[in-house]
């Protein structure tokens, strides 16, 4: 049942028309007078000291704008959580793609050519290229011990409980890096003088970029302006990296006396130099009772953070909190560390640490089921969280969700019981193609962790215009996920107005308040609520002014603005009253709510080619209310596709700390033929603190596919794969080594 006029309806994408006709302008599409094209000279060694920079003789260097660390007017830093990453290397090199020098020229070919004519002499130092080397402090490359952040979560008595287990297991799970491959590579245009800095480009978080520019130039906040333009996908890959690119482009412009400078990466540079998903290693020791009851989990989680801190501490936090999965586990220890290595910094990628730890626990549960002689569904039935249970950080599970029913719905859709029985018989034949069915159950916390939403203190505003329309002002960016449309629906709902009255203003720090970054599945759940409340406040203002009696919202706004000169309402984040979090002890309500899901897979493994083909995919999830069912399903389908890729094919090959296969031709993302029709189902249980009952859902679909696939492979081949991507080579080694 839907009592709403706009919420819960598949309103068409607001900027859809422009995107379909080719009229939508992305960063590289702007025609700008006097534009210079920027390029980056990089290190080629993972670690070392710069001993000299040489410019090829006879080359007309005076045609070029040249920037090194010395030209930075303020601080040589790309500011994120802490300030350990330089904008340009100054003497020391910590990864093989580190930027050392910037060049600009009116001709894009010339600048690429010039970059090959700069030689940087580096005295190499021994690098740290793996989690193990980093742990051994061999050598120390960051801080005192190579550790960016450590997190401990303890509950009950894990050691005591482990000793009592009927089944005790100890297994280690590995996940690889993953490249975002948004189809639009990173691009930024900057104009910078002491009078002011203007940066426009492809990005998720205008205020992150704003902060970084402010810190690097040491200019007053109001002299920095950052505007997002149409962004061709982000997935976390345009969360922190654009800050670096913006600093680079702005430095070139600064040196060029304010001429506009564009840096648009080509695909190879984008893949090699920008952030990727953190590789991980998770060791789980567990204890189960004879009947399958989970007694204890002891999880040691390690993330490879790359050369600088960037977002690793918060990625680690989400990974740690999700490490025990959706299970009731009375005795738990999580020890999580993010470590430094001499690779480009790893960063945000849809899921933000949760896919890594959920992969480990969801594989572990299937392995435990096999050892206990239970069906994986039976094992979960015994241990899945129920409302009122206590979660890892002591949080009481408030969500009224029936996880067993959710799981059963997915299992019914995929015809699990029947396939679970029949496939082993079929697989006993000589046919080299084996069949398997498997699933995963998981959750994803919506919004920032713990008290971070409170600290962010987000604000969104609505403004009425002279001609009776409503402008939505928020820093949340549209990058394909549907923020424009969802904000429009929510504002229209609050005002009881037609959607055509609502315009979402493209984020520009000179126009919009800081509603926080566009990350963490928070745009709909958190910022959407602010938009809703600002809309309700505007409606109240109009009613209090004696307007709106005839229901004509546009007319009421016109009258109000004519009378008072302006109409603006704001809403500021307020945490749900029940939420308590202690960042020092890691106890309390880690998230206001979670989205919950069960994903089920039916697949074929070819034992000749060792290729795995997903034949059917069912995604059942509880996301509060889906504000726009078409857009919501699109998010799930796209996330599942990325999750399947991470599970099977998307392998980053590292050589000397750099991505060796940094081309689309050898880092393979799924095409339409590689994927089945992803079947999406929503359970809707409105969340009291979300707009129209909505919860975050953007990252959830990344968490489930990889473990579900490997669980199905366990069923098909009776082996225990523990590593993604499970490429044909990895699988062959496992099968032939067995």
């Amino acid at each position: 049942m839907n009592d709403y006029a706009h919420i819960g309806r598949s309103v068409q994408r607001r900027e859809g028309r422009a995107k379909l006709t080719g009229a939508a302008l992305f960063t590289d599409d702007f025609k700008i007078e006097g534009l210079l094209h920027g390029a980056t000279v990089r290190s080629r060694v993972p670690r070392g000291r710069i001993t000299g920079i040489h410019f090829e003789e006879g080359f007309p260097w005076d045609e070029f704008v040249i920037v090194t660390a010395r030209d930075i007017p303020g601080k040589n830093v790309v500011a994120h959580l802490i300030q350990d990453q330089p904008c340009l290397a100054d003497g020391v090199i910590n990864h093989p793609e580190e930027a050392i020098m910037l060049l600009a020229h009116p001709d894009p070919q010339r600048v690429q050519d010039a970059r090959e004519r700069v030689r940087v002499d580096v005295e190499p130092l021994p690098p740290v290229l793996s989690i193990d080397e980093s742990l051994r402090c061999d050598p120390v490359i960051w801080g005192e011990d190579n550790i960016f952040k450590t997190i401990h979560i303890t509950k009950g008595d894990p050691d005591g409980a482990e000793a009592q287990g009927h089944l005790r297991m100890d297994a280690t799970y590995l996940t690889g890096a993953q490249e975002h491959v948004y189809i639009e590579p990173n691009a930024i245009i900057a104009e910078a003088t002491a009078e002011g800095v203007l940066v426009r480009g492809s990005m998720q978080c205008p205020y992150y970029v704003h902060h970084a520019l402010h810190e690097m130039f040491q200019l007053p906040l109001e002299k920095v302006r950052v505007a997002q333009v149409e962004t061709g996908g982000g997935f976390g890959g345009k969360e922190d990296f654009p800050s670096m690119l913006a600093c680079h482009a702005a430095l070139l412009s600064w040196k060029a006396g304010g001429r506009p400078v564009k840096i648009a990466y080509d695909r190879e540079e984008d893949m090699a130099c920008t952030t990727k998903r953190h590789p991980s290693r998770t060791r789980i020791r567990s204890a189960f009772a004879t009947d399958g009851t989970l007694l204890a989990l002891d999880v040691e989680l390690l993330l490879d953070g790359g050369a600088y801190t960037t977002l690793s501490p918060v990625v680690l936090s989400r990974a740690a909190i999700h490490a025990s999965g959706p299970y009731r586990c009375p005795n738990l220890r999580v020890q999580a560390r993010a470590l430094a290595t001499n690779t480009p910094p790893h960063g945000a990628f849809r899921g933000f640490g949760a896919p890594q730890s959920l992969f480990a626990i969801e594989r572990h549960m299937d392995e435990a089921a096999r050892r206990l002689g239970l069906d994986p569904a039976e094992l979960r039935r015994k241990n899945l969280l129920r409302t009122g249970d206590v979660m890892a950080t002591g949080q009481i599970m408030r969500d009224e969700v029936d996880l067993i029913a959710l799981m059963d719905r997915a299992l019914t859709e995929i015809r699990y019981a029947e396939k679970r029985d029949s496939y082993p018989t079929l697989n006993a034949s000589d046919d080299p193609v084996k069949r398997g069915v498997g699933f995963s159950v998981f959750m994803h916390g919506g919004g920032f962790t713990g008290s971070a939403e409170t600290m962010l203190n987000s604000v969104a505003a609505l403004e009425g215009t002279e001609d009776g329309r409503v402008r939505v002002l928020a820093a949340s960016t549209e990058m394909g996920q549907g923020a424009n449309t969802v904000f429009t629906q929510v504002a229209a709902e609050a005002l009881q107005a037609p959607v055509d009255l609502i315009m979402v203003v493209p984020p520009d720090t000179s126009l919009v308040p800081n509603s926080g970054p566009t990350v963490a599945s928070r745009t709909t759940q958190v910022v959407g609520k602010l938009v809703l409340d600002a809309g309700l406040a505007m409606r109240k203002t109009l009613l209090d002014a004696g307007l709106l009696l005839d229901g004509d919202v546009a007319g009421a706004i016109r009258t109000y603005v004519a009378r008072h000169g302006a109409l603006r309402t704001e809403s500021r984040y307020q945490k749900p009253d029940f939420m308590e979090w202690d960042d020092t002890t890691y106890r309390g309500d880690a998230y206001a709510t979670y989205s919950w899901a069960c994903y089920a897979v039916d697949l074929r493994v070819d034992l000749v080619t060792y290729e795995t083909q997903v034949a059917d995919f069912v995604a059942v999830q509880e996301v509060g209310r889906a504000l726009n069912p078409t857009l919501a399903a699109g998010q799930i389908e796209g996330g599942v596709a990325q999750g399947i890729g991470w599970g099977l094919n998307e392998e980053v090959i590292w050589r000397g700390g750099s991505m060796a296969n940094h081309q689309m031709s050898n880092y393979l993302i799924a095409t339409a033929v590689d994927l089945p029709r992803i079947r999406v189902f929503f359970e809707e249980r409105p969340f009291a603190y979300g707009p129209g009952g909505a919860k975050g859902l953007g990252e959830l679909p990344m968490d489930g596919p990889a473990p579900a696939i490997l669980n199905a492979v366990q069923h098909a081949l009776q082996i225990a794969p523990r590593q993604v991507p499970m490429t044909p080579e990895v699988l062959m080694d496992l099968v032939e080594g067995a």
Partner: protein
Amino acid sequence: MSISKILLKLTVNGIARQIYVHPMARLLDVIREDFGLTGTKEGCGEGECGACSVILDGMLVNACLVPAVQAQGSTLRTVESLAGVDLSPLQEAFLHHGGAQCGFCTPGMLVAGTHLLETNAVQDEAGAREGLAGNLCRCTGYVKIVDALLATREGRP
């Protein structure tokens, strides 16, 4: 070391155009920079992603791989030609089904999809997937793009 440019004459979206181009210029750059038709995108520059798909003399090509001089005397169609006053049926279907998210692959998808429909190359879902295999999308998982193509083919919304 000035290299003499070549006069290129072709019909672009129904209009006769001529322009001097560098002998090594890519068709993609001529489309985007010289003709200002920035609907055609560059996602990889190596023939992998299909974001630069255009129709050249009735053939679907990746404009990043085609030397501009090869378009001499040709008829070229880009995404900008698909809509008249109204959106084309395929564009309408994309809007209705949610086939565009970030929109960066979308022009290429639409051009490829239009070509598939015009050549009657799609009979069913498997055919639609096969036909779109040269166009990468990172946002959608392809379901809604395939649905839009099939719906258009069958003349339903």
